[in-house]
């Protein structure tokens, strides 16, 4: 298993390398630069700024320098926020985004799994149809629709929750629901499908034949086996959360990584954008590896090759 982990990590290096190169090429191919503000800078000031950030060197030198810096986990200085390094910005934004993401994931799992189980145990009954229609609605209502509608109802018409910003736990309620609902719906559908399959399997029939109570059969014998597809869904789910957080953080004015990315892209903040993209890439690769390891631990039939 250690060998497998190391091989997977080694395999991630070319992926991240390509990601980095693509981001670099794209940022530099784009028209406009970080110092194209509203007012024209004096040529000398501009030259000094470019010299300071090494923008006056040939591209391949800049690329080499950036690779070397990134290899030492130094993402460089931000252009947009003067005197702040990209590392600092990521360090300040990541805990916020991670809290939001983890809470949304928990929300999705805690509600989605029981919903799917209930639907599976009453297959083709009223609960099943209601739950699955609700799940389909959850998938079909985009988070950027859900978020403003919730703000309208809970913050504008009724003053129950804050419309945005960061503060106490109440600031997280609407963002978490907005970000987690679609995922919860997916989890419910997955849980239903795999639960139905597991309930028909031999080991569940054996458990029933032994005379175990219905609750014990469902919770102890069926549920762990039914959870494996949900575990493997966590990889794509994490990527979805990261994507969704861009728009959710913008809507609710939450100072997380997603907002840094959007403002960085709009202001041609090369280093910030590349830093955030690379950081996301590392996160996704790491999370997928974690999920695969967890999967093997849950299901001994999976062999690490």
């Amino acid at each position, binding site marked *: 298993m250690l060998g497998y982990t190391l091989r997977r990590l080694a395999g991630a290096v070319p992926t991240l390398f390509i990601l980095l190169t693509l981001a670099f090429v794209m940022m530099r191919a784009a028209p406009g630069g970080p110092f194209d503000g509203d007012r024209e800078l004096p040529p000398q000031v501009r030259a000094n700024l470019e010299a300071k950030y090494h923008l006056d060197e040939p591209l391949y030198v800049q690329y080499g320098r950036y690779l070397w810096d990134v290899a030492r986990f130094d993402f460089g200085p931000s252009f947009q926020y003067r005197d702040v390094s990209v590392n600092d910005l990521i360090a300040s934004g990541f805990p916020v985004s991670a809290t939001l993401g983890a809470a949304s994931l928990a929300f999705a799992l805690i509600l989605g799994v029981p919903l799917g189980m209930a639907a599976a145990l009453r297959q083709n009954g009223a609960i099943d149809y209601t739950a699955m229609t609700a799940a389909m*609605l959850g998938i079909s209502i985009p988070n950027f629709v859900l978020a403003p509608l919730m703000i309208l109802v809970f913050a504008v018409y009724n003053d129950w929750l804050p419309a945005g910003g960061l503060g106490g736990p109440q600031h997280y309620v609407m963002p978490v629901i907005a970000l987690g609902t679609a995922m919860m719906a997916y989890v419910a559908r997955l849980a239903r499908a795999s639960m139905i399959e597991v309930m028909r399997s031999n080991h569940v029939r054996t458990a029933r034949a032994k005379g175990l109570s219905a609750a014990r059969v469902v919770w102890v014998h069926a549920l762990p086996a039914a959870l494996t597809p949900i575990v493997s869904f966590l990889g794509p789910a994490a990527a979805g959360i990261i994507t969704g957080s861009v728009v959710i953080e913008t809507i609710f004015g939450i100072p997380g990584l997603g907002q840094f990315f959007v403002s960085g892209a709009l202001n041609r903040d090369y280093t910030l954008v590349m830093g955030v993209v690379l950081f996301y890439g590392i996160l996704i690769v790491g999370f997928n590896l974690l999920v695969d390891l967890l999967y093997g631990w849950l299901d001994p039939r999976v062999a690490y090759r």
Partner: protein
Amino acid sequence: MNARAETLERAVRGRSLWRDALVRLRANRAAIASLAVLGVIVAACVAGPWFSPHDHFTQDYGAIWVEPGLADAHWFGTDGLGRDLFVRALEGGRMSLLIGLVATLVSLVIGVVYGATAGYLGGRVDGVMMRIVDILYAMPFLFFVILLMVFFGRNILLIFVAIGAINWLDMARIVRGQTLALKGQPFIEAARMAGAPAPAIIARHIVPNLLGVVAVYITLTIPQVILFESFLSFLGLGVAEPATSWGALIKDGADEMGRAPWLLVVPAVLLAATLFCFNFIGDGLRDALDPKDR
């Protein structure tokens, strides 16, 4: 033809996969209802604007913030510039549906060709081709699309290509898996024995047998693409004025929702209903073509 031959022919004709699927799909009430609702939405988007005296870009400062109603044929009201929401919502629907269709076709063509080639050739070629797909899978593409839109302007053609170029990965994987399964079948072997070259086998024998999977995939990809375009438009990176899409309208509506909630609610409901219908139809098709999951 006498009666006996007719009976014989009817018995021999048998039931094809597609006829079986059609029968099962008809029995799925949710899918049929979704098909009907979707038909109404599409028809309204295509033909609806002609029935209104207004168009989607003319600004009428004598009629701003009109609430939905029958007054002056502003059935869904107007926005802060006096533009008619009924026509704008349907016009936006045209754009969203068009992008959904075209980008899906782009990803379909790339995915089917790539997946079928990798699966049919197998061996080292397959290994390399699928490794490329794996690497691309790990890319946070959304961010590249956002960067593309920011840097190179909001160009509809670019949206098509960018979305299509992302979505083909899933299709390539699915098609490759199916091709691997098909490849060992006797009819493929027969074609190879008869001397058919690989491209001909892929085009004439493999691809037609993938149509079932492809049909399901199309109905499930179109809503994804529509959602993605709306997401871009919501960030202000999708289609540019005077053209509009549901995502762009939702963004405008969200900015003014305190004053004019209908500007948010109308496009939001249309978008959600469309996605809902597509998803239900896709589910129904999958159950119909692949009955083992029932």
